[in-house]
């Protein structure tokens, strides 16, 4: 646990320098997507933080819609799904599908599965080892809320 901190700090520092420095203009607005993913793998139990940071990237990228990275809506939707927020998950899967025709098959499947889960188990979160974020935990609600 303590051994991880320096590596995360270093990563954050690096990301900052990369962002501030010579970063060339990218086609998409990735934010710190790679660092967020890595932090999630290094510290998987902190899924709330992962969800929150992904939400921030989505929100920033939405300012320039044509620079929304491929896969980002879906990645965020899945993080919402894992947090038990099924309706919002579906919303973001649909956005991914609208934005990227290549995602259609996959998103159709995920939307269908999520809807089935919703019907079978209204209320509780989908399976998995994540505890349900009780109805009112506004603390983790990212700004990129589904309407």
């Amino acid at each position, binding site marked *: 646990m303590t*051994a991880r901190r*320096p*590596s995360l700090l*270093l*990563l954050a520092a*690096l990301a900052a320098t990369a962002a501030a420095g010579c970063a060339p203009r*990218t*086609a*998409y607005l*990735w934010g710190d*997507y*790679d*660092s*967020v*993913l*890595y932090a*999630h*793998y*290094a510290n998987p139990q902190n899924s709330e933080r992962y969800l929150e940071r992904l939400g921030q990237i989505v929100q920033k990228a939405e300012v320039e819609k044509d620079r929304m*990275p*491929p*896969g*980002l809506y*879906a*990645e965020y*939707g*899945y993080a919402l799904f*894992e947090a038990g927020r099924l309706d919002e998950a579906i919303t973001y899967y649909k956005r991914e599908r609208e934005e*990227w025709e*290549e*995602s*259609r*098959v*996959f998103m159709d499947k*995920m939307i269908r599965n999520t809807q089935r889960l919703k019907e079978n188990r209204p209320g509780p979160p989908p399976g998995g080892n994540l505890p349900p974020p009780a109805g009112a935990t506004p603390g983790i609600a990212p700004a990129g809320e589904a309407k």
Partner: protein
Amino acid sequence: MIRRGLLLPLVGLLFLSLGCAAAPPQKDYTAFRAANPRSILVIPVVNNTTNVEAPGLFLSTIPIPVAERGYYVFPVNMVKRVLEDEGLSDPDLVHMADTGRLCNLFGADSVLYVSIEAWTAQYMVITTQVTVEFDYVMKDGKTGDTIWKEHKRVVYAPQQQSGGSPLAALVAATVQAAVTKAAPNYMPLARQANDEVINTPGVGLPAGPYHPKYGESPNSLK
């Protein structure tokens, strides 16, 4: 007369061999062009090293450069989790699975298989040498054929400070080694390896449909 006849082909041969030596290595992109993928499914990487953090770190560095090359890249973490739910939590199993079936599952045109071959920090007296090595193979979802592959090894040894007293340089290097020791810094190396593999003219990944240079010869990348 006879001499001349002999000399000319010889000179020609010489030019040919010179030309070959000067030209950068170039790939045959025929299969790639025939497949013409729009989307790439990046599956969890096979780890042939003992470093347990390597696969997660690598996986987080690969979507950006591939997508920036002009392809739709499936959300890597979501794909990983969905595969786990399908009973494919072991990357070795995923890599052994039929490419066509994988593509059908996600509606993908192609699959990118990556294995990590080296991920080491070699500690020396006053510095640390960090090495990463990856193997990249891209397969077509329709035929299962390999349409692109690359291999990359990147080695990094922190440079000693120039200027200042020798003692200061020694201290700086020691500090650097300590930092590297506590948290070997692989992220920039993985990024560098990916960038070189994807964007090197003549061997890299051809520009995809979302790239302004889509359709141009891969030999004039960038």
